[in-house]
């Protein structure tokens, strides 16, 4: 612990440079440029800390933290406090060195002919508007200071550190969230302090009282226990029912999330339960939507049938279900990746055929189908998102119920057996053809339902809405949530569909961050956010092997 070799000093330099490079990338793709005017902390209308600056700081802070962790690793208690602080400062210094180098380079040659975001504005942000010389020195000092601070925080006792870090993290999060949802304008310093202190105090208090509360619950009388359980269930239900109260835009986001939850529940059966990798799931979504549109839109005059939403719904769902079976038959003999590419092909075929001039008289071609009526319940037209929310919620609840019941049924177990090993499953007397087709059909049904609601929500649909990226997104939803896990689908949809909606100011970078998040997620938590118990076990077994 005392004898420090050269390599010990290389580690912080390395992580510092890494943090600097990530910050550099963030700056050069333009993330800073778009968000530098979005305030987190303000004072008298001036921006003290913007989202853009925070984005630059974040990788530096994380990498400094990593360096400090490496330094402290293997010690019960860090004795060399000065060394620890120096490690943090060193890594922060090198991180800012990368940025300073960029500024210097940008002044010497015109980077903008290649890197379009290397604008004078960006350099101004990086140097705190102090010009090249002074700005670079301040930048370097600031980096070192920041690194030192990170190290200092790790030195604090656990009891204080956790609430402090939480408070620090919560303030920008809350500021961004409120500005995304309610068009707020960042926090002023006192408000930020208040939010931070309250958050910290609450965490502190919760950590103190939580064990006691648990004891208290355990000590309740049986009837008290029952009330407690009922309350525990009623509370979330009440919250879910009350969500549209948040306003039209949050409801809109939730409806979009709901559409993906429905599709996710279906694909979860196909991929998560039965292990059939389907990349063309959007085909059934498209079919459901188009069936709904063709049957209800007054524009479609070639067949002379004009149904209402509820009359058309069974047909739309039925169309998807039968398509699930019909498209399922040719791929019965295919496995794994062959299946993946063929289903991807199906998705594209459906989209291209719907778009084609050939079927234009029947399906509208590029013009799409417009004037699709909204759903009407009783005398209430579901014409805005807070009302539509309940429709999609009902759909999701039904689908989730079916999925949960199926999971532990004979069929569900057959699916899982098939997922684990087709040949063994067949040997055990499982009819592979029937089981597979049932998986495809159930999955397609949910997707068709989602598509039908989608069509009536939008009132106009176009083939472009059914791109292969939708399939990939749904797959992402179930993977991020946790394969085979039903609550996971909800969490996954919230994370992949809901969260990007909230970060709309980064619209241009949504897919960039989506990609980075997927990679990061798979590297750190491949079992998903809410893993299914069996799958988690499998992954841990795999860990054991390595």
């Amino acid at each position, binding site marked *: 612990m005392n004898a420090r070799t050269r390599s010990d000093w290389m580690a912080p330099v390395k992580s510092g440079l890494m943090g600097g490079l990530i910050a550099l990338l963030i700056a050069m*793709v333009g993330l800073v440029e778009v968000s530098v005017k979005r305030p987190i902390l303000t004072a008298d209308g001036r921006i003290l800390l913007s989202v853009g600056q925070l984005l630059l700081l974040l990788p530096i802070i994380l990498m400094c933290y990593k360096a400090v962790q490496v330094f402290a690793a293997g010690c019960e208690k860090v004795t060399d406090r000065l060394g620890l602080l120096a490690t943090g400062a060193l890594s922060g210094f090198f991180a800012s060195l990368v940025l300073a180098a960029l500024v210097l380079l940008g002044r010497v040659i015109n980077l903008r002919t290649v890197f379009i975001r290397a604008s004078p504005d960006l350099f101004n942000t990086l140097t705190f508007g102090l010009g090249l010389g002074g700005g670079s020195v301040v930048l370097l000092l600031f980096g070192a200071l920041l690194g030192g601070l990170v190290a200092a925080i790790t030195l604090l006792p656990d009891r204080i550190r956790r609430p402090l870090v939480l408070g620090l993290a919560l303030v920008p999060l809350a500021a961004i969230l409120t500005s995304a949802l309610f068009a707020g304008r960042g926090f002023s310093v006192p408000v930020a302090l208040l939010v931070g202190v309250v958050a910290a105090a609450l965490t502190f208090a919760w950590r103190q009282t939580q064990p006691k509360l648990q004891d208290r619950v355990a000590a309740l009388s049986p009837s008290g226990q029952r009330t407690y359980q009922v309350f525990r269930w009623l509370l979330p239900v009440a919250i879910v029912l009350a969500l549209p109260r948040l306003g039209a835009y949050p409801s809109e986001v939730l409806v979009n999330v709901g559409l993906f939850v429905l599709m996710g529940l279906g694909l979860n059966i196909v991929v998560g339960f039965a292990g059939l990798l389907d990349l063309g799931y959007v085909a059934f979504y498209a079919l459901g939507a188009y069936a709904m549109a063709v049957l209800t839109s007054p524009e479609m005059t070639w067949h002379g049938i004009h149904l209402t939403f509820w009359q058309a719904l069974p047909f739309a769902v039925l169309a998807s279900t039968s398509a699930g079976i019909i498209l399922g038959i040719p791929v019965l003999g295919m496995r794994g*990746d*062959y299946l993946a590419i*063929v289903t991807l092909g199906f998705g594209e*075929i459906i989209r291209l055929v719907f778009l084609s001039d050939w079927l234009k008289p029947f399906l509208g071609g590029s013009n799409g189908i417009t004037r699709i009526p909204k759903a009407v319940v009783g005398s209430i037209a579901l014409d805005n998102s807070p009302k539509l929310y309940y429709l999609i919620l009902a759909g999701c609840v039904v689908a989730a119920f079916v999925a949960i019941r199926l999971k532990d049924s004979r069929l569900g177990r057959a699916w899982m057996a098939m997922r684990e090993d087709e040949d063994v499953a067949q040997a055990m007397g499982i009819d592979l053809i029937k089981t597979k087709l049932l998986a495809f059909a159930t999955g397609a049904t949910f997707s068709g339902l989602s598509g039908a609601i989608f069509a009536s929500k939008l009132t106009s649909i176009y083939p472009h809405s059914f791109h292969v990226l939708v399939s990939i997104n749904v797959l992402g939803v179930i993977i991020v949530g946790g394969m085979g896990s039903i609550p996971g689908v909800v969490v996954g949809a919230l994370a992949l569909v809901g969260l990007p909606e909230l970060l709309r100011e980064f619209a241009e970078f949504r897919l960039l961050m989506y*990609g980075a998040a997927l*990679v990061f*997620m798979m590297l750190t938590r*491949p079992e998903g956010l809410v893993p299914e118990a069996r799958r988690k076990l499998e992954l841990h077994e*795999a860990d054991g092997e390595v």
Partner: protein
Amino acid sequence: MLRRLLRRVSGTTVFMWLIGIAMLVVVVWGVYATLSSGRYKASDWIDLTVYGIAQGSVYALIALGYTLVYGILRMINFAHSEVFMSGPFIGYFVAMALSQSGFFNRQPFVSLIIVLLVAMTVSTTIAVLLERIAYRPLRRAPRLVPLITAIGASYFLQYTFLGLFGSGIKGYPEVAQLKGYWPFPGTSSGILRTQAVVIVSAFVMLAILYVFVQRTKTGKAMQAVSEDKDAAALMGIDVDRIIVITFVVGGALAGAAGVLYALLFKQVKFDMGFLPGIKAFTAAVLGGIGNVNGAMLGSLFLGISESLFPNLVLDGLGLPAPYQLKDALAFIMLVAVLIFRPTGILGERLAVKKA
């Protein structure tokens, strides 16, 4: 005998045969109708075939990247389309610099080789970084995990390029010596010089790859690793090194494919990789994924049919604007082939289950 046959023939098999026969009837009818209409000259058909071969040879170079990685890691490297995009994208800046200094016009072929080398280096670097950062830690994870990682990496790379270099279209400088035709029998005006160059260079590279995989020690080690990783490791093969080499080879081929693509089509853009990537992967599956020869064959087959079939089949059936359905047709063909050969044209090797 008959009874045993009947037992083997289930409802679904009959259904599939019916689909197959229906497809065949439609195709034959379409071809007959088109040809009997006599609207196209024989030279038109040969032209279309040549266009298809040029497109197919670009697919082949990309498809090999998919198939090599699949053969060894059993994963679809979805981000390979971005490996393909990155090379010519960076190469563009070199080409533009050369063009502005006047060197490109004086020495077009030297310049093209410089651009090619740059593109191959960039693509290789991206491929190796992908393997190192995104895939290596997941070597033992369930198969869907690296697939999702690859999809994520694909998005990330695509939009990083968009952010760094902008969304405008970048056009490669044109080579004056490569304009016009070279005589070629059967065609209406000869073969386009760019296409000739693309076809020849693609075939040279494919031949080099073939020799590399079949004859060299490293190539044999690659085959061994794709057969059985653990056994190969026991035989003293450094599996990690071989996997890196696979990504290097795949990346270099993709970079080369990118430059050939730019030579044919001139434009590079951040999302240019997506469609060729999907097509090349389709081609790899068509040929039998994991099989190097299959990838080449599948690519040429796909290229030619994309160019030929809409006109040959759909025209006769009276469909308007058949080339709009080109991609749909490519996928239908994939389905048709896989119905009767579920592991692709040359894919016996994968008949053993790998799922």
